[in-house]
């Protein structure tokens, strides 16, 4: 298994390289640049600035310079936010985004699993019908709309929770963002859990367990849960990238100091270093999490062999 993990890590390297290459050239070939302001800079100054950031070199040279830098852990300077390196900007935003994302991930996954299991056990009775209906809402209604509605209801009309913003320690400010981020994720997990649990509960070995007199609870805990989790776990990888997408919106709507905000402004301002740095980081995180998911998957499903 260690060999498998190692091989996966090695295959991740070309993926990251490919991403860097594609993003680098797409960004550079796009019209515009980081120094297009409202007022054009004098040509001399522009030339000096471009020389300072090596933008006057051939594109291929710049590319190799960038990759060499990244290999040494140097993501370069931000070209728009003066005095900030990309690494420093990421260092400011990333911990918050990760904290928000993982909280929502755990809340959504746990809630989804529990709700899905309850619905499956009570198939075709009211808890099941209720869940099947409720689960549709966050899947159909886009998260930015949901975010605005809960802001309006819980923040503006009821005054129960803060509308937005965040300072360290103000955990009440995180309730709504985590809720919005966790809901669609939890809904999908619940749907999958319900479906696979119903399937598992109909299998022969569960009938055998029941016929030899095991209690319903013991059957669930000992025999049904593990196989029922297989499709759910395989969803968790893509689920994480949905969460990532969601966090861009949630950070924007609730004015949270995460990395999503930097990414969007950087893309609009052609802040090449920040866009590339953030993308590489996200790809890296997603690849790492997918690896973990695959290992968990193999533990759950004895039919999976590491190749």
């Amino acid at each position: 298994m260690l060999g498998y993990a190692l091989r996966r890590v090695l295959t991740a390297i070309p993926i990251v390289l490919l991403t860097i290459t594609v993003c680098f050239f797409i960004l550079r070939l796009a019209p515009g640049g980081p120094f297009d302001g409202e007022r054009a800079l004098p040509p001399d100054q522009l030339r000096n600035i471009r020389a300072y950031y090596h933008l006057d070199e051939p594109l291929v040279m710049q590319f190799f310079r960038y990759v060499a830098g990244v290999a040494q852990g140097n993501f370069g300077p931000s070209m728009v936010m003066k005095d900030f390196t990309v690494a420093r900007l990421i260092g400011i935003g990333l911990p918050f985004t990760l904290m928000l994302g993982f909280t929502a991930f755990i809340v959504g996954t746990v809630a989804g699993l529990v709700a899905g299991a309850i619905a499956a056990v009570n198939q075709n009775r009211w808890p099941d019908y209720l869940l099947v209906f409720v689960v549709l809402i966050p899947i159909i209604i886009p998260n930015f709309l949901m975010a605005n509605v809960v802001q309006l209801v819980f923040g503006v009309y009821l005054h129960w929770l803060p509308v937005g913003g965040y300072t360290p320690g103000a955990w009440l400010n995180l309730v709504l963002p985590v809720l919005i981020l966790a809901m669609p994720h939890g809904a999908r997990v619940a749907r999958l859990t319900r479906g696979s649990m119903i399937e598992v509960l109909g299998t022969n070995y569960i009938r055998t367990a029941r016929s030899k007199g095991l209690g319903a609870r013991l059957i669930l805990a000992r025999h049904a849960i593990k196989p029922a989790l297989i499709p759910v776990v395989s969803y968790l990888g893509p689920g994480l990238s949905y969460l990532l997408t969601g966090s861009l919106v949630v950070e924007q709507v609730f004015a949270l100091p995460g990395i999503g905000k930097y990414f969007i402004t950087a893309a609009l301002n052609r802040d090449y270093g920040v866009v590339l740095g953030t993308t590489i980081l996200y790809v890296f995180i997603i690849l790492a999490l997918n690896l973990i998911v695959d290992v968990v998957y193999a533990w759950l499903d004895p039919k999976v062999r590491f190749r």
Partner: protein
Amino acid sequence: MAGITGKDATLTAYADALAAAPKGRSLTQDALRRLSRNKAALVSIFVLAALVLFALAGPYFLPWTYDKIDWSAIRKPPDWVKGHYFGTDQNGRDMLARTLQGTQMSLLVATVATVVSVVIGIIYGAIAGYFGGKIDAVMMRFVDIMYALPYILFVIILVVIFGRSPVLLFVGIGCLEWLTMARIVRGQTLSIKQREFVEAARAGGAGPFAIIFRHVVPNLTGPVVIYATLTVPEIILTESFLSYLGLGVQEPQTSLGTLISFGAPVAEALPWMLFTPAAFLVVMLVCLSYIGDGLRDALDPKDR
């Protein structure tokens, strides 16, 4: 006119009998019949059709256009006398006209991106599945890699390139959306290419591309239709998401996402500015979701 021998009458009777005789049901008829039994999907189809028609034709019947400013009605709630049925925004523009224009834009980009993604997905998947072996392995490995990448980041990078033209932007988004389609088509192609009619075509001397496009692809209609109906709402969501972040459609053109993002900050004082476009968006998404589910059930070969 009836002839002397009455042959016309005989012939007509015969034709009638032919028409009335029990016929074998085709796959499409079968699917349509089952779809028409699904109440939710049927209602959704009618609601969606009405909405599309309204979005396309409605602007011609409204007293205001989407970019016309009514200086006497700025930030006003719904007013039936002046013809502002859903109120006006901060610039005195009619919300209903703007919402209809936004709905048009959402539908347009969704159609464009869906067509692009379906075409790429079919071609890619069918080629990978038909040729198999090393070609298949390399092509599908590439899809796996793309799957792992954060889709939305690429979309935002695309916005940087195509920012000024919404339609081009969604051609670009279509170019990112085809992954699942390619996987489904490949899987289907793998089983279809084992069938006798493909062998017959090969024996008849058809080349690989003729077989793929004449014999394999027409058999993929079911999954393609289902996938397309599921892609449309996804693109509408992506579009409104981008517009909400300020990355999508630019003024004075508008889209549902743009309208929602302008309505949200003022929703406490001017609720109609948020809820008009929001209602259109939600109704559209709900309908599309039910239609997609209905089609999936109707075309499912398992419960025939």
